[in-house]
C-alpha cells in the first residue's frame, strides 16, 4: 500500500510539473497573439495578460498597409519555395550515386563530403566566395551556397540504401538507365524521406535572417525575417526605453507581424511532428 501511494504522488507531481512546462512554453505565443487582436486602449493600459480584450483585427490591416511587410512576405515565399525546390532536387539526385555500392570512388566522395562537417572556415571566406561569384543581391546568394545540407544528404542516402532492390533490379534487366531508375523508381518511392528533409530545408529558408542580411543590400529584396529584425529589434523603444508612449501603440502591429510570419510554419506544424521526428532521429544516429 505504501508503495502504491508513493507512486501516485510521484505521478501527480510529475504531471503538474509537465503542465507547468507546457504553459511556460506556449504562454509567450498566446500573449503575443492576444496583444495583436486587442484594442489599442487595453494594450496601452497593459490590461492584457493572457486573453485578448476588445477583439479587432486593425493591427493586421495596418500591417498589410505598410508596404514593406507584404513585399517581404512575398519575397520570403519566393525564396523559400524556390530554395527548397533547388535543395530537394540537388539533394535527391546527389544522394543516388552515393547510395550505389558500386559507384566509382564512392568511399572517397563520402569522406570528402563528411569532412566538410568538421571543417568550417567561418563566414568571411564564405562571403568572399559568394561575392566573388557575383551572387550578392540576388536570390541565388540565398539558394546556391547552401544548395545541399550535408546532414540531409546523408539522411537521404541512407534512406536510398535501405530501399528494397527488387524493383530496381527488374528495371535494370529491362535495360533502364540510371536516370530512369532514379526519376521513375527511386524518387517516387522516397516520398517520406523527401518530405522529412523538405521540412528541414523549408524551415531553414523561412526562418533565415543572417544570410539575407549579409548578402542582400537592396531593401526591396529583403525577406520577412530581415524586415522583422529591423522592425522589432532595431527601431523602437525596446532598447532606449525612453520613447515609451510612442513604442506602445505599434505593439499590436508588431505582434500582428510576428503572428503573420508564423502562420505558414504553424500550418505545417501538425505534419511536422511525424516527419521532423524521423529526420532528427536518423540525423542523430548518423551523428
Amino acid at each position: 500500500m505504501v508503495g502504491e501511494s508513493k507512486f501516485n504522488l510521484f505521478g501527480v507531481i510529475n504531471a503538474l510539473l509537465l503542465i507547468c512546462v507546457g504553459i511556460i512554453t506556449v504562454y509567450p505565443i498566446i500573449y503575443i497573439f492576444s496583444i495583436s487582436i486587442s484594442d489599442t486602449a487595453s494594450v496601452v493600459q497593459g490590461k492584457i495578460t493572457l486573453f485578448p480584450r476588445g477583439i479587432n483585427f486593425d493591427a493586421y490591416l495596418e500591417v498589410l498597409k505598410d508596404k514593406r511587410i507584404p513585399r517581404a512576405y512575398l519575397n520570403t515565399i519566393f525564396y523559400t519555395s524556390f530554395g527548397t525546390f533547388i535543395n530537394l532536387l540537388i539533394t535527391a539526385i546527389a544522394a543516388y550515386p552515393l547510395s550505389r555500392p558500386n559507384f566509382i570512388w564512392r568511399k572517397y566522395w563520402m569522406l570528402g563530403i563528411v569532412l566538410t562537417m568538421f571543417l568550417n572556415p567561418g563566414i568571411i571566406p564564405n562571403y568572399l566566395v559568394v561575392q566573388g561569384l557575383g551572387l550578392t543581391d540576388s536570390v541565388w546568394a540565398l539558394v546556391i551556397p547552401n544548395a545541399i545540407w550535408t546532414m540531409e544528404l546523408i539522411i537521404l542516402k541512407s534512406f536510398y540504401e535501405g530501399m528494397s532492390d527488387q524493383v530496381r533490379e527488374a528495371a535494370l534487366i529491362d535495360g533502364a538507365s540510371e536516370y530512369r531508375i532514379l526519376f521513375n523508381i527511386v524518387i517516387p518511392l522516397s516520398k517520406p524521406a523527401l518530405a522529412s528533409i523538405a521540412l528541414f530545408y523549408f524551415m531553414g529558408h523561412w526562418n533565415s535572417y543572417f544570410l539575407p542580411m549579409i548578402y542582400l543590400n537592396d531593401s526591396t529584396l529583403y525577406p520577412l525575417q530581415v524586415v522583422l529584425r529591423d522592425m522589432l529589434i532595431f527601431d523602437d523603444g525596446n532598447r532606449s526605453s525612453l520613447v515609451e508612449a510612442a513604442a506602445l501603440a505599434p505593439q499590436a502591429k508588431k505582434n500582428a507581424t510576428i503572428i503573420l510570419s508564423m502562420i505558414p510554419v504553424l500550418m505545417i506544424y501538425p505534419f511536422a511532428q511525424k516527419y521532423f521526428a524521423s529526420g532528427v532521429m536518423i540525423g542523430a544516429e548518423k551523428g
Partner: protein
Amino acid sequence: MKRDRQLLVLFLPCLVFYIIFRYGPLFGLTIAFKDYNVFEGIFGSKWVGFKHFANFFSSSDFLLLFKNTLALGFLTLLFGFPIPILLAISLNELRVKWLKKSIQTLTYLPAFLSIVIICSMVMDFLSPSTGLINKLMVALGFEKIYFMIMPEWFRTIYVASDIWATAGYDAIIYLAAVAGISPTLYEAAKVDGCSRWKSLWNITLPSLMPTILIMFILKTGKMLQIGYEKVLLLYTPTTYEVADVFSTYVYRKGLVESNYSYAAAVGMFEALIAMIMLLSANFISKKAGGKGLW
C-alpha cells in the same frame, strides 16, 4: 563503364557544389595569412605570415572573447544539456496518453520559430515599460530592471531563452531512445518489486546512457559555436563586454568594418579550437569505455 558515367553525371552538381562552396572557402582562408585587398584579389594580395594572428592574440579583445565564448558555451551546456533528458524522462513517466502527447507537441513548438521572433519576444517580455516581467516586479514592490542593457543579465537571458527554444526539440532524440527500451525489462523489474522510481533509476537511465554520451560529445564539440545569430540580435554596445563572442566579433570586424584578413584569422582560430574540442571529447568518451562518434 556506361553505368559509372551515368552515375557520375548525376553526381556532378554535388561535386561542383562541394568544391566551390565547401572547399573553396577553405582555400579562401589563405587570406588570413595575407593582407587581403579587394582590388588585388585572393591571389594578388601580399603574404604577411602570422601577422593577423599575432595582432589578435596580443589585442585585449582576445582574452575577453575567449572568456565570453567559453562562458556562454559552458553555461549553455551545463543548463541546456540535462533539461531535455529530464523532460524526456518525465514525459515518459506520464501515463496519461493525451496529456503526454499534447505537452510534447507544445514543448517543441518554439523550435519552429525563427531566431528573430524568439529574440523579439525576449525583448518584449523584458522591456522596462511594456514587459510583463517588469510589470510583475513593480507589482511585487521591486525596482524595474533594464535587462537588455545590463551586462550582468545577458548570460542568464541568453541561456534561459535558449533552453526555452530548444529543450522540447532536443528531447525528441531521448524520447525515441526511451521508446526503444524493451518493455520486458520493466515487467521483470515490476515482478521483482521495483518501484517506478527504482526502475527509472535502474533501467531507463542506464539504457539512455549511450545516447546521452553521443549527444554530449556533439554538444561539447559545438560548445564554442555559440548561436551567434542570436547573440547578434540580443546584444547591445553596453553588453558587448559579456556578450561578444568569436563569431560576432568576426562578423563585426570582417563584414561591418571590411577587415577581411584579420576577421578570417580570428574565424580560423575559432574553427581550429572547435575541432580540437570535438576530437578530444570523442577521444575521452572512447577512453572512458563509451562509444565515440567514429
